[in-house]
């Protein structure tokens, strides 16, 4: 059990256990001559070879400044501008020598530091004293702001996250067949389709487009289904008294339509005798 990572162990513990466990390894700041450098050197003097790569570990001039301040255990609010500027310029000089494509941001920061330094040195007119703010204030504000988010980034990095610390748990699904749901249809889509086909067929032209009781059309279908057995049905059996007068009218109209459309036969043996109806064609007669 000794080599198992303890649950909830901190990252420091992980670093030592990294060699034996599949834990995340600490990323070296740089690799110099094949040797990983895990710590930023404590001395200001860094061999130029190493500096080149170490500088890549900095996320810009604010990061470098923060490093210089923190390395000397200085309160960020209390920057000894002259000293920090000197150190910063040392770095910049080496960077200049080593890396032609030195980011402009570093040079801008050097200018800012130089300006702050000169303003601190210059005597100020007495009436302005106490009104003008510390020339370092803006830089301090930026450093503080940056440091917050630098910390926030570390905090986010420390959150347990998928792949590194967690993983989805899933079970196999045998018979992974897909249930198909039919697409939804909007009534409007259907009506637009009808409008277009009517236009195309120029049905509006020679068809009465006045109100056509569609319930009659539906009843035509209902009646046809009832007659679908091909047998004769008594006229009265097609009516449902519970539907009321309107229902009776709809059924009657549908019978007339069906007859007109030659879909049913209506028969009466003698006047006042029972009326029989029959579908003219049924599934049995269809081939």
């Amino acid at each position, binding site marked *: 059990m000794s080599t198992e990572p303890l649950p909830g162990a901190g990252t420091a513990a992980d670093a030592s256990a990294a060699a034996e466990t599949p834990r995340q390894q600490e990323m070296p700041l740089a690799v110099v001559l094949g040797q990983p450098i895990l710590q930023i050197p404590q001395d200001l003097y860094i061999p130029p070879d190493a500096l080149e790569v170490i500088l890549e570990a900095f996320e810009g001039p604010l990061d470098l400044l923060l490093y210089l301040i923190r390395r000397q255990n200085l309160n960020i609010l209390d920057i000894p501008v002259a000293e920090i500027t000197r150190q910063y310029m040392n770095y910049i000089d080496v960077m200049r020598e080593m890396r032609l494509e030195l980011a402009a941001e570093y040079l801008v920061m050097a200018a800012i530091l130089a300006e702050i330094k000169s303003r601190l040195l210059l005597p100020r007119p007495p009436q302005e004293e106490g009104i003008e703010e510390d020339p370092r204030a803006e830089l301090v504000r930026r450093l503080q702001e940056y440091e917050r988010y630098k910390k926030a980034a570390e905090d986010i990095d420390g959150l347990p996250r998928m792949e590194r610390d967690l993983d989805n748990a899933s079970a196999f699904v045998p018979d992974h067949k897909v249930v198909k749901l039919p697409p939804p249809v*909007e009534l409007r889509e259907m009506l637009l389709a009808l409008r277009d086909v009517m236009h195309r067929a120029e049905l509006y032209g020679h068809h009465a487009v006045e109100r056509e009781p569609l319930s009659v*059309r539906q009843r035509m279908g209902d009646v046809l*289904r009832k007659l679908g057995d091909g047998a004769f049905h008594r006229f009265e059996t097609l009516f449902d008294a519970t539907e009321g007068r309107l229902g009776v009218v709809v059924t009657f109209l549908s019978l007339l339509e069906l007859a007109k459309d030659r879909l049913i036969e209506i028969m009466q043996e003698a006047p006042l005798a029972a009326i029989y109806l029959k579908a*003219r064609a049924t599934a049995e007669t269809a081939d």
Partner: protein
Amino acid sequence: MEPERLNNIVEAALLAAQQPLTLPMLAALFHEEDGVGHEDLARAIESLTQACEGRGVELVEVASGFRYQVREAVHAWVARLWAERQTKYSRALLETLALIAYRQPITRGEIEQVRGVAVATSIVRTLEEREWVRVVGYRDVPGKPALFGTTRQFLDYFNLKSLDQLPTLAEIREIPDPDPQLALTAAANLPVAGRAEASAADSADGDSISPNPPDPAGADAPIDGPRTTEDAA
């Protein structure tokens, strides 16, 4: 390693792996110091298998190793996770449906006459499978073609009490073109369409602009597209 910890690791590994794991594969997860042998692993598998009793998943051995899988008994529900919405119906299908609704009972030949093109058998079958149309009879002409009509389910789906609630042909003629702007106002006069179907597949980006009656509070207004402030370039 205590059996409980071992069980936990084996359980987690089997659930994390995307394929079955064999005993040697499981053994490879441990260091020598963990002192985990094949018998320990077999015991862990045995214990985990028992722990699945009465649950929704089971631990089984298949040809390529051990895996957790969803039990047959609950599969009917789980399968609905992958319920797929088919793609939208074709124009031809909608035209066919509309003609059946408005001119029923009608034969396929008559639909073709109006549409000027043949009606694919698959369209009729789809409509029948959805139980929106059915054969209501046959026309007494050579070949005895089937007559189609709409069903109760058709009315239910479109929230209609009877076919009479459909707009008349004269009204349909007046429907403006499906300009997205106009559609919103014009659609307001039409009966409510499209029964809401709750589905996991209904993702946010799948929201179609539907002609639901306008909501005075605008909560459902389809203004969910990418926000474009007027000054956005």
